[in-house]
C-alpha cells in the first residue's frame, strides 16, 4: 500500500471521483483497477453499505458503496457508476462511486493535511476556482 503521507507531503497523482455532490480522491498508488458495475452477491447480515461480493478475476472481493459508507443518500447505479478497486496490504476492496472524473497531478502546496490523523479523510486538495477534493484513506474506508 502506498503511503498516503507521501502524497500529502510531496504531492502526486490523485484519482478523483464523485459521490453525491462531493469530490473525492484516492492516491493513484492505492488504486489497482477501475471496473464497471459488476454483478454483486449480497452478504447476508452485513450492514447496508457493504454491497456484497464481486468476482474480480477469480477472487471474491467485497464491494462497499461510498455514498452509504459516508452516510449520504442512497442512489441507484447508472451506466456511469463504477467500482474502484483499491489495494490494502495485498487485500482488495471495491468501492462503488457515482463516477470517476480524472487523474490529476496535485502539487504539495495545494494539499492540506486533515488534523484528524486516523479519519476517513486524510487531507484536502484546495485550489482556487476548483471544487474541493477530499483524499480518502482506503484502509479506514474498507475496514468494517
Amino acid at each position: 500500500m502506498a503511503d498516503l503521507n507521501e502524497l500529502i507531503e510531496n504531492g502526486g497523482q490523485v484519482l478523483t471521483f464523485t459521490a453525491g455532490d462531493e469530490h473525492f480522491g484516492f492516491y493513484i498508488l492505492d488504486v489497482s483497477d477501475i471496473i464497471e458495475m459488476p454483478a454483486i452477491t449480497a452478504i447476508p447480515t452485513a450492514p447496508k453499505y457493504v454491497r456484497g461480493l464481486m468476482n474480480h478475476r477469480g477472487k471474491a472481493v467485497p464491494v462497499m458503496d461510498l455514498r452509504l459508507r459516508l452516510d449520504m443518500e442512497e442512489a441507484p447505479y447508472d451506466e456511469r457508476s463504477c467500482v474502484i478497486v483499491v489495494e490494502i496490504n495485498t487485500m482488495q476492496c471495491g468501492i462503488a462511486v457515482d463516477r470517476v472524473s480524472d487523474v490529476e497531478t496535485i502539487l504539495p502546496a495545494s494539499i492540506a493535511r486533515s488534523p484528524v490523523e486516523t479519519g476517513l479523510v486524510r487531507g484536502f486538495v484546495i485550489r482556487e476556482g476548483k471544487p474541493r477534493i477530499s483524499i480518502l484513506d482506503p484502509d479506514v474506508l474498507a475496514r468494517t
Partner: protein
Amino acid sequence: MPKFDESMEGMLDTFLFETGELLENLDEILMRAEQAEDISLIEESDIAEIFRTMHTIKGSAAMMGLQNMSTLAHAMEDMFYIIREKTYVQTDKSALFDLLYKSSDALKGELEDLTDEDKPLTDFSGLINDIHALAAYFKGEAEKSGQEDNALPADIFDENEPPDMFTYKLTYSDSCEMPSARAIVLFRKLGAVAEVCRTIPPDMDDDGADGKIKAAGLFIKLVTDDRAAVERVLAAGMNVENFELFTPEMLKAQTSAAPAKQELVIPDGVFLPDDPDSLLTYRVMYSESCAMPSARAMVLLRKLGAFAEVCRTVPADLDADSADDEIAKNGLYIKLITDDTNAVERLLDSGINVESALPVKKPAAPPKTAAPAPKQEEKQEQKTETKTEEKPAVQKKPAAKAPKKEQSLLTVKLEKLDRLLDLVSEIVITESAVTSSPDLRGLETRLDRFNKSSRELKKLTDELQDVVMSLRMVPVSTAFQKMNRVVRDMNNTLKKNATLVFRGEDTEVDKSIVDMLGDPLMHIVRNAVDHGIESPEERLAAGKTHPPTVTLSAGYESNEVVISCKDNGAGMDAAKILAKAKKNGLLTKPESEYTEKEIFNFVVAAGFSTNEQVTQYSGRGVGMDVVKQNIEKVGGKLIVNSKLGKGSTFTIRIPLSLSILDVLSVEVGASSISIPASSIREAFSCNTDSLITDPEGNEFVYLRDRCYPLIRLGDKLQLDTDITDPTEGICMYCREGQYEAVLLADRIVCDQQVVVKPFSPLLDGLHLKEAGLAGCSILGDGSMTIILDMLSLLGGELGEEAQNG
C-alpha cells in the same frame, strides 16, 4: 544474540528444511539398519547413506556457523567411518543405535530451537564424548590411546612466551577418575611456589577436559624462581604418575615421529608389477618449510637427466595442483635407470630443500603390492577426512550417486505452488465462463469449430488442474515412517515387541493432510501399543499366538482418504466404557439406546481414559481429544471400532482436497446459499400439521416423534423472500455436532462441489462467521454462492463458545 551471521539468515529456511528432511531420512535408514542381526551385517548401501547424511549435515551446519551441530554430526560420521571400514574389533549394537537415535533427536531438537533467539545453542559435548567413547570401544582400547597420543596440542609453545617460562607435562594414572579435579587442587598448591600462566587443556571445568588430560596429559606453563619446589609439589600431587619438563624440542620430536611412521606408506602406483629390476626407486622428502616442492622437483628432475634416465615419478603430474600436497605428505618418488647411482644420490642430497633422499626397495613379494595399496590409500583418506572438514568425503561411489538423486527432486516454496493453484482454478472458471457465455446462445451462426476448440480447451484445462493438484500430493508413507520410531522406542521401554505393518503407504494425499496427520497418528499408534497390545504374558494367557501387530493402512474411498490404525490387542470393553461415561456424566440419552459405535466414540472424548494408570505414553485422556479436534479441523472424521479380545481399529476419514466441499445449494429470495451436505440429514416438504408455534412465537417442526426448532433462513440471514409459508418452501433437517434444527429455504437449486473461499479479512469486523457464514464460492458461471457455517448457525452463541473452547 543472534545465532547466525546476518548473511546466513536467508539460508536458514533452506537449511532447516534440508536438514530436517535428512534427519527424517536418517531415522528411516537407522530403523532399517537396526533390523540387521549384527553390525557387520548392515547393508553397505545403508551405511554409506548414513555416512553421507551425516557428512551433509556436518557441512551445512558448519556453513551456518552452527559449530555444535557440526561437531556432533562429525562425531557420528567418525563412528560410521569405523563401521564402514570394518576397523572395529568389538561392537555393541544396542548402545550404538541408542546413541545414534539420541543424537538424531538432539539434532532435530536443535533445529526446532534454532529459530528461537532466546534459546542458546545446545552444548552437545556430552553426547559427542559418548560417541567418541563408543568409537574407541569399537576400535579397541589399544588403538584409542595410540591414536590420541598423536593428537598433541599444537599450541603448547607460544612464540611470544618469555624464555624463563617452564612447561611441565603431567601424566595421571589410569585409575584416576577425574584428573581435572586433581589438577585444580594441584594448581592451587602450585600457586604458593610459582605463577601458573596457562594450562592445556585450558578449562578444567570443561566436560572434555578429563578426556584430553587422559589422552595427551596435562601441560602446565608456569614462571617460578624455585623449580625444585615446583617439582616437589608436582611429584606429591595425587594420582600423578609421571611429570617431566617439556621443551619445544620434545614437541618437535613427538610430532616428527608421526611422519617418520608414515615412511612405510608407499602410494599406489610406485611399484608396478612389470617394472624391470634395473629400475631404481628413490624417495625424496622435502622439508616442511618448502612452499612449492613440485617446482623444486622439476628442477631436480632436469638436473638428474645428466646422469640417469627418469622413467616416471609419483605423483606423475608435477604441474597438478595437488602435487604439492602429495609430495609434502608422501614425498616424491623418482623411478630412474642409471649406471652411476652415487652421482644420482649426491645430486638428490644436494637438491634445494631436500631433507632426505633414500632409495626405496621394491616390497619383497611383488604380487602383493596391488592388494595392500588401496588400503594404504584409505588410511590417508581417513587422515584428510578427519583433519580437514572442508574437503568432501573422498568417497567416490555415493558422491556420484547423490547428484542424480537431487536432480529428480525440486524444492519449491509452498506459496508459489499455492499461487499456481489459484491461477489454475481461475483459468478453469474463466474457461467455462467463456465457452458457456450467454452471448453465444443468441448467435445465429453455427459454432461447430468454436465448440470443437472449446472442448479441446476444456480437456486441457482439466488436465492442467489435475497436474497442479497432484503437485501437492505426497505419499502418506512420510507420516507413516515416523511411527516406526514411536513403536521402536515404546518396544524398548514397554517390552511388548509390537511390530508395525504398513499397507498402502504409497497412497498420495495433499501435503497439508500429511503434515496434519503426524500428531494424530502418533497418539493413535501410542495408544494402540500402550493400551491395545497386551504384555507377552497376557497374550500367552489369552492363547494368542500371532505376534502383536499394529497395522497402519491408507487408501481412498469415494472422495475421502481413509487411514486406519488396527491392532490385534485386547480390544475395548463396551460395557466398561459405558459405565465410565456414565460416571463422567457424558451420557445424553438412556444407556440402552447407545449403539456400540456411539459407545466407542466416548473413548475420544476429552478427559476420558479407561486406563487406570497414567504411563509415560498415555492415560491422561487428553491425547485422543486433541486427535479428534485436529482431524475435525480439516473436515475429517475419527471412527473407533473395537472387538473385545480381538483388537481395536481407529479410522480417520479426510476429504481428499481440503478446500473442496460438497454442498446443497438453495435459494432464499434472490440469494444463492449453500449448505454443507455433510450436515443435511434429510430434505422434505412439510405440511401444516407438523408445524407448531408456541405461545412465545417459537416455531417447531414435528418430525418422526421429535420436535426441532425451525430456522427460517430468510429471517436468520436478513434476506428478503416472498415465501413465508413453510409449506411452500423446502425444509431441511440438519445436524451438526450436538445441534439439530430444521432450516427453511425457498427451493433447492442443485447439489455441487465448491471451492470454499473465506471472506476477505477486511470484513472481519462484521463477525460473519458468528452469524453463520463460513465463506463464499465462485461457481462455474462466475456467479457466487454463500456457504453456511452450520455449527454457529445451529448453535447460535452456544456454537461460538463450543468452538472457542
